[in-house]
């Protein structure tokens, strides 16, 4: 009998101690709380190639648990925030999506006092065109669109987007499978400024793209990597940072920053209205702009960093000197930011692009 009792007591004791431990664990987790980050796929340095594992570093430093999920398109992010009952604390949309979200009152104003590292941000990337008063955003990374071509297939170094319409390269040209980027290039060649374009401008660009379609090998997005790296196509437009990756894989490739200028795009960190952990979100944003963290983001992505201190003191010279990752200020002055396109024009643009493909 005694034995039974002692067993029961022992069991009860161990049960309470387990409960206490579990409880204690919970309470510490609760102290620091959590932050729900919704980012592009493969868009944060994850510890590969000797770079920093940013998320676990942040967790270690602050004790905040990061719930990290990813999306593939701005539209997916938008639909998620708009139509489903989710809560994210930090999202990283592109410039045009940010202006749309601001218009639709989907973002919270940031308290920049909680983001001291904002002081490192270059002036060019403060008060972005999509957020002119600088109330909602902290720039994450930026880049331009450029062209990649195969030296063994293209005789002379091209200098303009016009090369994508070159009849001599018929059947070997790739084009963006994405209405915004494809239309923007076509608009430039029609001497239309893509920012603030109208439906008539879209029609002009659509006609230009329809003219290009018979010359194309394919409309591609991610497939451009295998196509160019395996010498299957001659020329393609793509995001400059990714072109650097392709050239590394295939020495026959080279790049062009078209003299017509190009599209300057950027993604910025914002806090959506559905956020329940605003303070932690600001801590996360601040952490991402620590110079050494921003530098590893830049080296991982091969996209430009908006962080002056990271650029000056932390980024390797090789990347600093690369025109693809860090184009000169002179070139950036020639670029336009594709933002503030009214919703109905954007819908029209997408529709026209699908129609070109369906022809």
């Amino acid at each position, binding site marked *: 009998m005694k034995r039974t009792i002692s067993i029961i007591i022992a069991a009860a004791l161990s049960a309470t101690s387990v409960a206490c431990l579990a409880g204690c664990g919970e309470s510490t987790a609760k102290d620091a709380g959590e932050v729900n980050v919704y980012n592009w796929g493969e868009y944060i340095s994850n510890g590969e190639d000797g770079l920093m594992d940013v998320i676990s570093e942040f967790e270690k430093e602050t004790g905040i648990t990061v719930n990290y999920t990813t999306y593939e398109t701005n539209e997916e992010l938008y639909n998620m925030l708009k139509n489903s009952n989710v809560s994210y604390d930090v999202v990283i949309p592109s410039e045009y999506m940010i202006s749309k979200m601001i218009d639709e009152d989907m973002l919270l104003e940031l308290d920049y006092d909680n983001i001291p590292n904002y002081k490192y941000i270059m002036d060019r990337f403060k008060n972005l065109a999509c957020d002119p008063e600088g109330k909602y955003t902290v720039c994450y990374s930026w880049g331009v669109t450029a062209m990649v071509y195969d030296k063994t297939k293209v005789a002379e170094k091209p200098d303009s987007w016009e090369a994508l319409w070159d009849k001599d390269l018929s059947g070997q040209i790739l084009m963006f499978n994405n209405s915004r980027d494809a239309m923007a290039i076509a608009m430039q060649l029609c001497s239309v400024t893509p920012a603030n374009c109208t439906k008539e401008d879209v029609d002009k660009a659509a006609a230009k793209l329809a003219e290009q379609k018979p010359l194309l*090998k394919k409309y591609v997005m991610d497939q451009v990597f295998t196509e160019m790296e395996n010498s299957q196509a001659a020329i393609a437009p793509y995001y400059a940072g990714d072109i650097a990756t392709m050239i590394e894989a295939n020495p026959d490739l080279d790049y062009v920053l078209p003299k017509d200028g190009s599209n300057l795009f950027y993604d910025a960190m914002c806090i959506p209205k559905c956020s329940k952990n605003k303070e932690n979100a600001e801590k996360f944003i601040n952490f991402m702009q620590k110079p050494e963290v921003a530098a590893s983001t830049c080296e991982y992505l091969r996209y430009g960093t908006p962080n002056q201190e990271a650029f000056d003191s932390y980024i390797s010279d090789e990347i600093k000197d690369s025109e693809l990752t860090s184009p000169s200020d002179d070139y950036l002055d020639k670029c336009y930011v594709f933002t503030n396109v009214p919703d109905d024009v954007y819908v029209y643009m997408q*529709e026209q692009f699908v129609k070109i493909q369906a022809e």
Partner: protein
Amino acid sequence: MKSRKPSIPYIIWMVVFTMIPLVMIGITAFKDKQGNFSLQPMMNAFYYTDVFVKSLWIAFISTVICLLLAYPLAYLITRMKKSSQNTMIMLMMIPMWMNFLLRIYAWITILQKNGPVDMAFSFLGIHETYIGNTAAVVLGMVYEYLPFMMLPIYTVMSKIDGSLIEAAQDLGSNNGAVFRKVIFPLSMPGVISGITLVFVPSASTFLVSQYLGGTDDIMIGDIIDKIFWTDQNTGSAISLILMIFIFVFLVIMNFFGDEEAIA
């Protein structure tokens, strides 16, 4: 009356994940952006008739080729001894353990410029492009969906009672007549489900055409995907039309199936 309780979870599942989404697509297809009733999405959908027809055509061709390849194969396998049958079925199944996309990537490598096919034919002095056309898309579809045609036919055929065949032979049928009068009619249910399993997914998929096709091989699934980015109403309308087509197709198939089963 027997208790229906065990089926309740399934009914809930069906309602939540099948019926409600279907109804929502049906409703969205008849609304404009502001949420008012409108026929505009349906009108928009008709712009894509050509792509629609081409998708159904590609699916049809793929299904026919699958059937022509799978039927004799299934028949030959049922003629083997039991242990070889299992090995053969296993061999058919192994590629399906791999990811769908990976298998398409393999085909890209095979068909691309300077790939094995190109190399072999260049050796003979033939220079052609083997990827980026409709034939490559059909090839990819046939490769992806062949097991879905083969397995149901094999299953049905291997269940045919051997004594029926013996009876036919006793009554003076030669091998050809046995096949025509006994095996073929009895294997029809397998053929019907095979056709359904191949035609329906190949009409709506877009991965194969995106990776193996050229600029002219866009399929209706791709259009739906892109249109949904900005215009969910037209996207729903096209989906709805596609569903109606597939539904009609299934009804016709069932009709055939029943008749053959009776005969």
